[in-house]
C-alpha cells in the first residue's frame, strides 16, 4: 500500500516538475497563441504567415479547437486571442471583440450537379432527411448524400441556427470534421450536398443560391444572402503587444485585402 502511494507521489512529482518548467507565453519574445474556430484557422494561419514575414520579431502560434474552446481560451487566458466563428451567447459576453471579417455559409453541390438553387426550407428538408432522391426537389440523379459538420462545430452551429431552425439534422447525415473535408467529399461525389465557409468554395464545387440569392460577397453585403456569420477575434482585455500588432495588421489594408482575396467579407463593412 505504502509502496504504491510512494510511486504515485513520485510520478506526480515528475509530471508537475515538467509542468512548472513551462515557458511563460506572456513574456516578451514569447510565443503568442491564437486558438479557436477551425473555420477561421486556415485564414489566421495565412495571415500569421504573412504578418511574420514582415515582422520576424513576432512569433504567433495558431491552434484549432473550435469556437467554444476559443471563447474559453480567451476567457481564461490560455490563448491571448480566441477565435469564434459564431456570435457570443449572452453568458459568454464580456470579452473584447474584433470582427475581422464575416463569412458566408455556402450550400455546395458537385460541379456537375445541374441544380442552381434551393429554398431555405428545401435545404432544411434535405438535411432533416425528408428527401431521398434529387428528383424530389427538382434535381437530377439518385439518392442524396448529405454531408454535415460534426456536433460542436461552429459552422454546424451557425447552419442549424440559420437554416434548420427548430428542425434537427438527420443522424443519417455523413459527418466530416472540417470544412475542407466536407468540400473534398462534395467535389468527388456528384450526388452529394454539404455546407462550408463561402471562403473555401472552389471551382470543383458549386455554391447554390438560397431563397433566390446567389452566394456571393456582393449579395451578403447587400443583405440578400442571409447565411452569414462573423469571424471574431476575442481577448480578455484591450489587446496589447503582439496581439495588438497582429490585429492591427489584419484590420489594416493588407490584412483586409488578403481576407477579401480568400473570399471573405472584410470586417470593416
Amino acid at each position, binding site marked *: 500500500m505504502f*509502496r*504504491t502511494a*510512494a*510511486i*504515485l507521489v*513520485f*510520478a506526480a512529482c515528475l509530471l508537475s516538475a515538467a509542468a512548472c518548467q513551462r515557458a511563460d507565453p506572456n513574456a516578451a519574445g514569447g510565443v503568442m497563441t491564437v486558438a479557436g474556430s*477551425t473555420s477561421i484557422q486556415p485564414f489566421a494561419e495565412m495571415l500569421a504567415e504573412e504578418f511574420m514575414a514582415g515582422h520576424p520579431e513576432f512569433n504567433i502560434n495558431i491552434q*484549432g*479547437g*473550435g*469556437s*467554444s*474552446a476559443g471563447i*474559453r481560451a480567451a476567457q481564461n487566458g490560455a490563448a491571448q486571442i480566441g477565435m469564434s466563428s459564431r456570435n457570443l451567447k449572452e453568458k459568454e459576453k464580456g470579452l473584447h471583440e474584433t470582427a475581422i471579417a464575416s463569412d458566408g455559409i455556402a450550400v455546395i453541390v458537385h460541379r456537375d450537379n445541374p441544380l442552381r438553387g434551393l429554398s431555405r426550407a428545401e435545404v432544411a428538408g434535405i438535411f432533416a432527411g425528408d428527401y431521398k432522391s434529387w428528383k424530389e426537389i427538382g434535381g437530377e440523379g*439518385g*439518392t442524396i*448524400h448529405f454531408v454535415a459538420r*460534426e*456536433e*460542436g*462545430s*461552429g459552422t454546424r*452551429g451557425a447552419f442549424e441556427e440559420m437554416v434548420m431552425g427548430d428542425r*434537427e439534422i*438527420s*443522424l*443519417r*447525415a*455523413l*459527418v*466530416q*470534421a472540417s470544412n475542407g473535408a466536407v468540400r473534398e*467529399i462534395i467535389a*468527388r*461525389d456528384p*450526388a*452529394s450536398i454539404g455546407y462550408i465557409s463561402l471562403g473555401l468554395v472552389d471551382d470543383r464545387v458549386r455554391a447554390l443560391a438560397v431563397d433566390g440569392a446567389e452566394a456571393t460577397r456582393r449579395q451578403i453585403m447587400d443583405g440578400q444572402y442571409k447565411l452569414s456569420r462573423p469571424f471574431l477575434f476575442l481577448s480578455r482585455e484591450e489587446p496589447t503587444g503582439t496581439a495588438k500588432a497582429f490585429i492591427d495588421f489584419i484590420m489594416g489594408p493588407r490584412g483586409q485585402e488578403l481576407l477579401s482575396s480568400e473570399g471573405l467579407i472584410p470586417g470593416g463593412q
Partner: protein
Amino acid sequence: MEKLIEKGLLVIAYSSIAILFIITFFIFKEGLPFIFREGLGTILGGVEWRPTKGEFGILPMVVGSLLVTGGALVIGVPLGLSCAVFLVEFSKPKVRRILKPAIELLAGIPSVVYGFLGVILLVPLIRVHLGGPGLSLLAGSIILGIMILPTIISISIDVLEAVPQSYREGSIALGATTTQTVSMVVLKAARSGIVTAVILGMGRAIGETMAVIMVTGNAVAFPGSILDSIRTLTSNIGIELAYASGDHQEALFATGVVLFVMIMVLNLVASMTRKKRIR
C-alpha cells in the same frame, strides 16, 4: 548504493502499473460521473447522439464498431490465414524467409496512409459500381481488413511453425495428403494460437481511428446495408474531441470508457487463450 539502485528500478518497474492506473483513473474520472448521471442504459441503449442537445445514445456507435471489426475479420482472417498456411506448409522456406519479414514491415505503414488510399481509390470504386456514398461500412471493413493482415499473418506463421514436425510426419505416414494433414492435424494443433492472432487483429481493428474516420462517413445511424455509412466509438472521439466542451466532452470520455472496457475484455480473453496454449 546497490540498495538504492534496486529501489530505483523497483519504482521504475511499478511506474508502468502506475501509468496504466493513471490512464484508467483519468478516463474513468471524466467519463464515469457522466455515465452515472445519465444512466448506463440511456447511454448504451440510446440511439440518438445529439450531444449539444442533451442526447447521448451511443448504441449506433457500439454497433458500428462491432460491424466494422467483424467485417475486417471476414476479409482479413481468410486472406491472412491462407497466406500463412501457404507460406508455412506449401512454399519453399526461401520464399517464406523473404515474404515474412516483408509482410511484417508493412505493419509499420501509418494508418492514415491506408485511410487516404481508401478515400482516393476504394471509396469512388464502391460509389460508382455498388452505389451509396462510397464512404461506408464496406470501405471501412476492407481497409481495416488489409490493415490487420500483417498482424494475423505474422502471428499465424509463428504459430504454425511451432506445430511439431512429427505431427505432420505422422499424418503423412498414414497416407494423408498435405492438404488433409494441414486441415486435420496442423490447423487443429494450432487452433488456440490462431485464435490469439485473430483476437490481436480484432484489437487493432476495434482501436483504429484515423483510417476509419476517413472512409466510413461517420453517420450516427444503424446501417441498412454494408453500403451505408457508420460511425465507430473511436471515430466518435476522433471527430468531436477537438470541439467538445462541458457535457459533450464528458460524453466523449464516456465513449472512451465503453471502448476501454471492450478492449480490456478483449485483452483478458487474449491473455487467457495465450496462457491456455502455453499449458
